[in-house]
């Protein structure tokens, strides 16, 4: 990576390199090319694809049923039969981690879907109409943003009860604020552009202007927000489950696995280590890929 610059310089000076070899292309092609050049981001993209495959084909890939208890094999260290060992009910830890991928990815995705729907709608409405609509929506976002996230999520979980569906709702309600703020800011800028004025002047309805002219221009922002929001949601899910407010047993979730592993840290430390590694890999992959995506879609933001 650091030698690349040097090689480039040498190639120019020796006359091997010419700018005539560069091709020019459209915004998205350019962005994709920039993304492809970012090797870390590409590695993370592959990791994400692998995670999705693991989640989809969990029943095929998992060596054991994740919920089947085997009291003959309780809290075993990793062996050939159980690659990552077994838990306090004799369940296979590897299989539970594989099934946990399903929980984490679907929570991340669905919570972000909900957050995006709420955030884009409210953000677009606030920016488009301005005035009291903007004031009301902005005050609501402020109240939501004022509270410590985890306590807020706990509060919602407490009110609506635990369970995977409620986690989607709680995390969606928690994370839409950022989307709304970004979209509001961007649409405020877009609103000033000529083509939007033109659309309005030619009698387009508000709905038409928002959905056909304004939101499509925020797509890259939304893509980046969703990609960077997923790891956030995954982290919250893990934390809630660790506190016992998230996914309920016996469903396998990485956070609750670490929670149940905690009493056994001296007896079987690997039990608590492996699910954490799974969380970390997933979150890092989405974070780095999201950063890469942002840099590729908006080269001005690149450092």
């Amino acid at each position, binding site marked *: 990576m650091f030698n690349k*610059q040097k090689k*480039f*310089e040498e190639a120019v000076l020796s006359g091997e390199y010419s700018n005539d070899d*560069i091709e020019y292309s459209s915004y998205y092609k350019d962005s994709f090319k920039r993304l492809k050049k970012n090797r870390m981001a590409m590695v993370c993209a592959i990791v994400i694809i692998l995670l999705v495959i693991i989640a989809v084909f969990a029943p095929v890939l998992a060596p054991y049923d994740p919920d089947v208890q085997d009291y003959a094999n309780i809290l075993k260290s990793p062996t050939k039969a159980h690659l990552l060992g077994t838990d306090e009910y004799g369940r296979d830890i590897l299989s539970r981690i594989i099934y946990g991928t399903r929980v984490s990815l679907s929570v991340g995705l669905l919570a972000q879907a909900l957050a995006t729907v709420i955030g884009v709608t409210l953000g677009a409405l606030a920016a488009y109409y301005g005035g009291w609509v903007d004031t009301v929506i902005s005050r609501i976002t402020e109240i939501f943003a004022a509270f410590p996230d985890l306590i807020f999520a706990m509060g919602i979980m407490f009110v609506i009860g635990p369970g995977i569906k409620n986690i989607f709702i709680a995390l969606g309600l928690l994370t839409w604020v950022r989307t709304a703020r970004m979209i509001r800011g961007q649409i405020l800028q877009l609103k000033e552009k000529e083509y939007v004025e033109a659309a309005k002047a030619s009698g387009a309805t508000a709905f038409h202007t928002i959905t056909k002219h304004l939101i499509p221009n925020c797509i890259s922002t939304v893509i980046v927000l969703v990609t960077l929001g997923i790891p956030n949601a995954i982290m919250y899910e893990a934390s809630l489950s660790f506190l016992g407010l998230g996914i309920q047993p016996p469903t396998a979730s990485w956070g609750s696995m670490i929670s149940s592993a905690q009493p056994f840290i001296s007896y079987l430390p690997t039990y608590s280590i492996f699910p954490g590694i799974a969380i970390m890999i997933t979150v890092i992959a989405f974070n780095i890929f999201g950063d890469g995506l942002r840099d590729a879609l908006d080269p001005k933001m690149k450092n």
Partner: protein
Amino acid sequence: MSENLLEVKNLKTYFFTDGGVVKSVDDVSFNVKPGKTLGVVGESGCGKSITSLSIMQLVETPPGKIVDGEIIYNGENLLGKDKDEMRKIRGGEIAMIFQEPMTSLNPVFTVGQQIMEALMIHTDMDKTKAKERAIEMLKLVRIPLAEKRFNEYPHQLSGGMRQRVMIAMALSCNPKLLICDEPTTALDVTIQAQILDLINELKEKLGTSIMMITHDLGVIAEVADDVMVMYAGKIVEYGTADQIFETPMHPYTHGLMNCIPKLNDDNETRLHVIPGMVPSPDRMPKGCAFCPRCSEAKKICEEKMPELIEIDGQKVRCFKYTSEWEEAK
């Protein structure tokens, strides 16, 4: 000591970017004589600023890099100096003022602090002396209420005032060479004249050599002894101010001359512009870089780059003055 304060020889500064290589300064040679002013003219993007930043060795590396050449100051090659030696030259021997007075001063320090800083680096003054000298400098550049301004922050001053502060700061350590990179471009016309007068006056008073970079031949006419015209990273014409204004040779110089509105023009005359734009630096034409915009271009201009030739002490890069011109179609 040679007769020149600064001799730049075959300087090449390239930028190595994702979009390809940009030859911002490509084989440029020139001299600055003691106590004289060299004017460097050209449109934006022609490599004037990068030339000056190369002398100061302030080119952002990477992506930029001085790949070849010599910068000889007072008989010593600056490119051979280490970081610390170079640091002492910057601000002490060679000072610089920039185009944007609004953003060139640090917003979180007072004007006084910023002038004193340069003094305390390059001289052995203590705080009290540095403060005295700083206020003296503020008075020298004719800032009213210098003592009060000393304690103010840049945002409390107007653009012209800030540029005066920049000049005071640059000259505070008695540099032998002052590089002015478009010092008046961002200012109102009346302020422009004041700043130019001030620079001229201080040059006489302090004997400083000046390298004046601008896109405005009008500014050059006011201050320069020698003139260098740059286009797309190369010198296209180089001579004394008299030569350039009386016998401009390169079609580009002609073009620039015509861009200056003249007082005796009647209202019907439209302002001249050079058609087209400077070619994108990473997409240079094969031949003469000015060829696509040149009204006199022949086929030969598209095919190869003319050399810089000297005619009666005036240098020009154009086929018009070569034997090849007559033969060419």
